[in-house]
């Protein structure tokens, strides 16, 4: 394992320390927690928005804290959902009396820990609502299983919910906006190389030079299928094909995200964007806005995901609203 770090069990601590040092003009850390919040939280009259999850997905989640996006992000250990007490601290710190929305990615661990935090917060008299993001079309959508994972599409949920909350909309409205995005967003990813959890020191899997994993999540886990390495255009065809087959996009406007998993050069992301743009044009789908870069990573995994968000009037204006979150522009 080759990483720039000091102690494998201090990575989250030191990263958060560096992060708030770098952005102390707009953010701070709640003392003795792994919670990063807006300097001005709680914002009077505004619904608080809290997200978070395991670390290793940087810039998620602290990079999305800021005016117009999250009020707080809770960081767990690498790839490990944060614990209920940490989430509770975040909820308490951002509640202005208008209630708090939790944006949770659909992983058993995240759901359970955030649920417990919500129960604890409710017991303290805070109104809490939750939305669960499950945008990964590579996973079968079934009520008998844990369902689909939440991956890069989560960033759009942050953005839209954050923008709506900034208008001082009530909790139910903010929640409805977030759920609308969740209904309209689909993603799928591919990995060319694994990643290494610092405390483990071993790569999450091994791939031959000519293999890739299709349908991966954001935790260095194996994907749905191991297939021969293909050209950028063919991979884009496959991922986009799965996404388009999963939702009704005819004549629609969309936002596109090409999300690097950590080690994929921007050069390659734009080569993928090119093909996605070509394919969508062919299909008569209009790209209203795009994001190409690293938004929801898996440490130093090589690979990327494609996210398509089908737009309506509300989502469009929320995407265009300003935010001073570090990692979204």
């Amino acid at each position: 394992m080759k990483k720039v770090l000091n102690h494998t069990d201090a990575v989250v601590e030191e990263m958060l320390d560096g992060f708030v040092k770098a952005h102390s003009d707009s953010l701070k850390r709640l003392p003795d927690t792994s919670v990063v919040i807006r300097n001005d939280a709680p914002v009077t009259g505004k619904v608080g928005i809290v997200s978070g999850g395991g670390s290793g997905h940087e810039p998620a989640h602290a990079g999305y804290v800021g005016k117009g996006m999250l009020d707080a992000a809770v960081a767990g250990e690498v790839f490990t959902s944060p614990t209920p007490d940490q989430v509770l601290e975040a909820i308490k710190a951002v509640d202005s009396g208008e209630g708090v929305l939790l944006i949770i990615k659909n992983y058993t661990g995240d759901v359970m820990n955030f649920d417990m935090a919500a129960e604890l917060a409710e017991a303290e008299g805070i109104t809490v609502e939750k939305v669960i993001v499950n945008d990964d079309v590579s996973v079968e959508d079934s009520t008998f299983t844990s369902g689909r994972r939440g991956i890069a599409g989560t960033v759009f949920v942050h953005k839209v919910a954050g923008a709506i909350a900034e208008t001082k909309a009530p909790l139910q409205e903010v929640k409805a906006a977030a759920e609308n995005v969740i209904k309209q967003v689909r993603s799928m990813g591919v990995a060319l190389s694994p990643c290494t959890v610092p405390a483990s020191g071993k790569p999450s899997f091994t791939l031959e030079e000519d293999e890739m994993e299709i349908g991966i999540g954001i935790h260095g886990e194996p994907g749905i299928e191991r297939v021969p390495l293909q050209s950028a255009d063919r991979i884009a065809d496959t991922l986009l094909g799965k996404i388009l087959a999963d939702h009704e996009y005819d004549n629609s406007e969309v936002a596109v995200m090409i999300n690097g998993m950590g080690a994929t050069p921007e050069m390659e992301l734009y080569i993928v964007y090119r093909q996605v743009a070509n394919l969508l044009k062919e299909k008569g789908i209009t790209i209203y806005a795009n994001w190409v870069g690293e938004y929801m990573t898996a440490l130093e995994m090589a690979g990327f995901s494609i996210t398509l968000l089908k737009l309506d009037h509300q989502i469009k204006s929320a995407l265009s609203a300003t935010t001073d979150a570090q990692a979204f522009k």
Partner: protein
Amino acid sequence: MILTVEKTIQWMREIHKRMEANKEQLTALDQAIGDGDHGINMARGFGEVVAKIDGTEYESVADVLKSAAMTLTAKIGGASGPLYGTAFLKMATALQGQEVDQQNLKSAIDQALEGIKMRGNAELGEKTLYDVWYQVADFLGTEKVEDWQEMLEVCQATIEDTRELKATKGRASYLNERSRGHVDPGSMSSYYIFEALATVIEMED
């Protein structure tokens, strides 16, 4: 009386030893069908449990279990944190004000099982740690245990059974058919919990 305060404390220490010793194994199992943090999580969690215990006086078995439950919930995170936290909390509640014999240990584990089910929404055969707790509860209900190693045989068989199952809950479920052929990491860590339990129960007082 099969568990005393001292033995319960020792139970926690024995669990911790096993989680440390098998950290890599558990993590490797989790890499195969999960996200590769299970051994790290368990070692960290029970490390914290032991650290907490070291600085505290306990009145009862239930107190020790409750303390462990709080620590696990607050220090593990992930799926296993809430699940084991809930399991130990339910055991603590079940054993409140009681001395521990096989019978109320069985009730405690029944309660833990209910807690796991409530939290994780899993059923038997979904390739999760629920499977191991279920079979242990079942075993404790069937006969008077003389040799606690029998409980471990039950665990071992269950773990082996998880291998060929298709996961339908937890992270491994995303792999669908590809989840077959690998032992469930959480079932394995549960095995170490019961192995530690058998060890302390069989210890001379």
